[in-house]
């Protein structure tokens, strides 16, 4: 019951402490800002890379051929069954006539172009291009598609799929390791920055302890201070990240050499970036202050 009296006091003390120890507070906010921008920049590159990979993956497909004895109507009726399969994203039906045209078009300009154009339509079969949700499950999906009545054979390139899966796994692994590493470095830097600030206040902590303050009471204003510093660093880092990202995105979009890359607009990601920055700032600020003050509580 009595604890509730102190809630406002802790907030007020946390705020006051930030301004009382202005230089250390500035250093802590700056460190959080710097760490978050480094971490954020890397993460945003990873997000862009992930999307590029995702688009490439989405283009990856395999062909499922329709039984030659099926009529056009029967062949088209299979579509619903295929799309009902769990890992199938969508399917595209291509008649054998269209398939022949596509084939001929692919070799347009070739010296044997006439030969391709004169191929009989019967050589081709009605087919479905099957797009998957998760290309790492390609083999299982092929088995399921083969099990659908009216499907007779398939054409796939699993080595390309495996390549994509490997690249994605490596990229995700590297991103995760680097983000965790940067997070730990941030925590260490914040811990030391706040510890330095706390060191100058060890006398204050000793007095509090000698007057009968519990560890919780001593710790609370420092935790509030850490949270506020973390949040301040996060908000500043968010705007700085926005600026840096927009500049780089603009340079890529208008550059002549790297037009193949499509950069995700920051406006599409700002909520996520702000949430991650705020959460990281809070965790790092709070964790850093709790760790920093721990030593001085042993009175």
């Amino acid at each position, binding site marked *: 019951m*009595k*604890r509730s*009296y102190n809630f406002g006091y802790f907030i007020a003390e946390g705020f006051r402490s930030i301004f*009382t120890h202005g230089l250390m507070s500035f250093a802590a906010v700056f460190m959080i800002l710097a760490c978050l921008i480094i971490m954020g920049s890397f993460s945003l590159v990873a997000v862009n890379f992930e999307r590029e990979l995702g688009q490439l993956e989405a283009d990856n497909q395999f062909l499922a051929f329709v039984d030659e004895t099926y009529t056009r109507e029967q062949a088209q009726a299979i579509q619903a069954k295929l799309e009902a399969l769990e890992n199938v994203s969508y399917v595209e039906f291509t008649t054998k006539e269209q398939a022949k045209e596509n084939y001929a078009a692919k070799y347009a300009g070739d010296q044997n172009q006439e030969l391709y154009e004169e191929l009989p339509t019967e050589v081709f079969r009605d087919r479905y291009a099957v797009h998957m949700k998760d290309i790492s499950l390609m083999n299982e999906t092929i088995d399921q598609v083969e099990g659908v009545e009216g499907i007779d054979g398939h054409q796939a390139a699993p080595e390309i799929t495996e390549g994509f899966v490997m690249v994605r796994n490596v990229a995700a692994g590297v991103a995760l390791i680097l983000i965790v590493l940067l997070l730990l470095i941030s925590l260490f830097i914040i811990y030391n920055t706040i510890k330095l600030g706390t060191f100058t206040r060890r006398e204050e902590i000793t007095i509090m302890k000698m*007057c*009968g*303050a519990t*560890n919780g*009471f001593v710790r609370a204003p420092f935790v509030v201070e850490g949270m506020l510093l973390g949040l301040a660093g996060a908000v500043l880092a968010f705007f700085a990240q926005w600026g840096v990202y927009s500049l780089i995105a603009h340079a890529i979009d208008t550059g002549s050499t790297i037009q193949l890359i499509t950069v995700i607009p920051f406006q599409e990601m700002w909520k996520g970036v702000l949430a991650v920055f705020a959460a990281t700032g809070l965790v790092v600020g709070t964790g850093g202050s709790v760790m920093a003050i721990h030593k001085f509580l042993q009175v």
Partner: protein
Amino acid sequence: MIRFIDVQKTYDNGTKALKGVSLRIDDGEFAFLVGPSGSGKSTIIKLITGEEEPTDGRLMVNGYNMGSIRNRQLPYMRRTLGVIFQDFRLIEKKTVWENLEFVMRAVGASPREIRKRIPYVLDLVGLTRKDDRYPDQLSGGEQQRVAIARALVNNPHMIIADEPTGNLDPGRSLEIMMLLEKINELGTTMLVVTHEKELVNRFSKRVIAIENGRIISDETGGYYKNEEII
């Protein structure tokens, strides 16, 4: 009440600070603890405040067994004590009022209790109109009065004053000692550690003398006799 029963204290570096101290200070008493540097006075204070644990023997402080007290209980034991230091140890960035307020906050006092108690204590120590001053705006004597007010504000059973007049001139020292006597008359047990022979002898109180980790004399209405140990 404080009770030492054959208490020994040996520090990690092998220094034997206390060699079997037995001592009892009852509620409401006023006692001086005197002795030369290194005699064990500070160790006695540290044992009472829970900064150190006894190596052997039994120590009770206001109902807490200091040999087996848990860390969690330590703040609650300390709330039964008020500690005054030679160097005042006020928080420089807090006003007089705030220096007292945070101590009351620490024990969960309500704002209403704080508003009521602080003016009373400041009046008691003679600092009624200085509640908005910062420590560096006060004289040494006034700073020590704030420290006394801080020790008193939570109405402890006992006040321990560690060389409370060590940084003050004789005039201010006497004032502070008289203030401590007044507080004792209001019912608070007082243990004053000091080097100051004249001051001790001016008040006819209990004098506990310690030397080389042993109590060498303990007399009510006693005097600080041994000039060599000053």
